[in-house]
């Protein structure tokens, strides 16, 4: 394969690999902007993945599958919201617990429906939306205008989130809750409501992200199929400095890393595949290193808000 062939293959695979991290990271961005760290994303993604898979398998509707996955994610994050916002519990511990629950429960649900079969069942994946004319443009045509619907949805959500967070009263209120909930409350902004809304939104997005993995990308469910994507999403929020645009850029960079390591793995068969597979994780370490201490995190991140 020549260089341009490789390049095209990598570019084509970039957005599909980016989407799950992208969606989850956008949700986590809102979460953290309001001052709540949700480490349960990984588990919630898995729950979204299994929920979407089961729904699509039995009811043959990708749309319903996505909606149900989002709602499952929302329900899961409600637990985190209750513990960290209502009970002022430790957000790290609560998030870790949710990660475990989602991690295990997704496998349990799978086994309950499909047993411990060797060959996993599969569902057809949702196709891509081809925008007429534009798709036929050389190279960029296929990449930018022939993507999965979730690609366009991710872009729309990015734009919408940025506008809401930085161009509306709601967004300012939300960010003020993340900086100093006491100040916000005195000014008539309820930290509890804003944090609940944010956490639930984050859960919904993580659910969608999981659904994309099964219904959108692979067509099957595998145990622990996220393999750290939820945590990479959390890392991207730091990289993106709590700004949806930067977070999106980070997600696309990660899509590129995934695509590149998969592509190179298939080309350089003499190099053990493990060295390509570990790339996304090493890239995460590097990206966190690159952010360094420069970013200003919301002041109240991980701090429970205790009313006097």
């Amino acid at each position, binding site marked *: 394969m020549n260089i341009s062939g490789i390049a095209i293959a990598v570019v084509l695979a970039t957005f599909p690999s980016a989407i799950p991290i992208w969606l989850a990271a956008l949700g986590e961005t809102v979460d953290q902007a309001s001052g709540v760290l949700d480490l349960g994303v990984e588990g919630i993604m898995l729950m979204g993945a299994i929920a979407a898979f089961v729904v699509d398998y039995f009811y043959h509707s990708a749309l319903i599958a996505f909606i149900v996955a989002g709602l499952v994610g929302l329900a899961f994050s409600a637990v985190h919201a209750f513990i960290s916002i209502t009970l002022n519990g430790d957000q790290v511990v609560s998030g870790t617990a949710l990660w475990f629950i989602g991690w295990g429960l997704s496998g349990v649900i799978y086994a309950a429906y499909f047993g411990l079969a060797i060959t996993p069942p599969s569902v057809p994946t949702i196709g891509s939306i081809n925008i007429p004319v534009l798709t036929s443009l050389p190279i960029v045509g296929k990449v930018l205008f022939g993507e999965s619907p979730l690609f366009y949805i991710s872009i729309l959500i990015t734009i919408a989130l940025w506008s809401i967070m*930085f*161009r*509306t*009263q*709601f*967004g*300012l*209120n939300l*960010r*003020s809750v993340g*900086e*100093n909930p*006491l*100040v*916000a*409350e*005195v*000014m*008539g*902004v309820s930290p509890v409501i804003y944090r609940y809304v944010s956490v639930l939104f984050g859960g919904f997005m993580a659910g969608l992200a999981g659904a994309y993995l099964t219904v959108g990308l692979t067509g099957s469910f595998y145990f622990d199929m996220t393999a750290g994507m939820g945590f990479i999403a959390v890392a991207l929020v730091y990289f993106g400095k709590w700004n949806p645009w930067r977070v999106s850029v980070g997600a696309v960079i990660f899509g590129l890393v995934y695509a590149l390591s998969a592509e190179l793995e298939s080309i350089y068969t003499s190099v053990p595949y493990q060295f390509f597979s570990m790339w996304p994780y090493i890239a995460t370490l590097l990206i966190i290193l690159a952010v360094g201490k420069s970013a*200003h995190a919301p*002041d109240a991140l991980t701090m429970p808000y205790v009313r*006097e």
Partner: protein
Amino acid sequence: MEPYIRMVGITKKFPGVVANDSVNFEVYKGEIHALLGENGAGKTTLMRVLYGLYRPDAGKIYVNGNEVKIGSPTEALRLGIGMVHQHFSLIPYFTVAENVAIGLGSWRNGLEIEKIKAMIKDVSEDLGLYVNPDAYVHQLSVGERQRVEIIKMLVRGVNVLILDEPTSALTPQESQQLFNVLKRMKDGGRGVVLITHKMYEVMEVADRVTVLRRGRVVLNALKGEISEKALVEAMVGKEVILGSPEKRSVPQKGALSVEGLVVKGDRGEVAVNGISFVVRGGEIVGIAGVAGNGQRELVEAIFGMRKAVSGKITVDGVDITNKDIRDRVSAGLELIPEDRLGTAVIPKLSLFQNAILHERWWDPYSKMGVLSISKARDLAKRIINSFGVATPNEQVQAGSLSGGNIQKFVVGRSMARGARYLIAVNPTAGLDVAATDSVRKTLVEFRNSGGAVLLVSEDLDELLSLSDRLYVIYRGKLVKEFLPQFDRLAIGEAMMGGQQ
């Protein structure tokens, strides 16, 4: 004329204290009403009730003649009542305009910063409240931050503005500017409540004064009707509070000496820029200054919590500039930090665990790194008994004590280990009158017994009453030394950078 606000028979109890005991209080539009009293007299509590932060145990509140229940600051704001606290509630990483905009208008609205700026201009221009709406709050001085707080309230259309000890961290000149703003607000038809314990502020700006003592109203009069002397009597009653220490002891041998000290701040800026001074045994040396002029960095560098870029710090002639805190403590240095619950004690640890925060390095509290719990408990008991810390026992969490008792414990801890050089930062901030008294007495006794105290405080009155001499710090430099009798205005000028 009907008062805009009428509080009738307000009673508010806290465990063990009646903070307000059937208090009546009125505010008219177009007047400045001073709420006068010692620390702990119940002034702030009363106003927090009015602002919806506390619920009264008894009593009624009328606004514009209608009885109201004020359950939250939001409701208070809706009723036209605003409050500026001693500790500002601003978000440092937001701009002035963004801070003003928090919670303003429906959450469905777009954020129109230009409109907000226009509103800020609108309310602040004729009052002389100048501040750049695009500046980030962390770039502003204390005085400017206070202006932002006032603007926040005015934009919300308050009819009555409560200010809690607004001048405590301001220079006399900044205070003067503030008073001018308040007078203009009054002339514009608004009511102002000025919580204060400073007599001259009352005489300067107030139209009416209410004096609280131990939670009760002891006096309510128009300013013209009453003499300053009567006010003082009403405020302090027959108690004699510790004023300026009578006995000035003779400086002794041994000294904490700082030479050409340069220290960087959190953002890498030069925060302390070549400071030199000496504190000898038997004297209290005050450092006056507006917050943020390098006090924190200076103290942290002396105690070893921050690196000195250059310069020399010695205790009894021993160079400790680059030593660990352990060596400094061992040399006889101790610090009473400003931040009680975050730095001085660990709220979730027991008192005896807190007692050995510094002692843990030495026999008998530890041997070869192994702690002795029983010795730690003995030490805690000793501190509790000698310094009158009110606590059930030494095993309760430090955070469960009142601020005053925590501070007594912290001061006692420094004394118990036999320190000879003590740095105290705002040691009585936020304490009630009894605890303030006790802490100040301890400092004076310590001085009288030959100890050296470096007193860094934002409370000018405290500095003036305790210090044997004092320096003014401005932009990281000691700009002037003052000796008794202290010239209050000259000190204020120096704090503003007026005299070099």
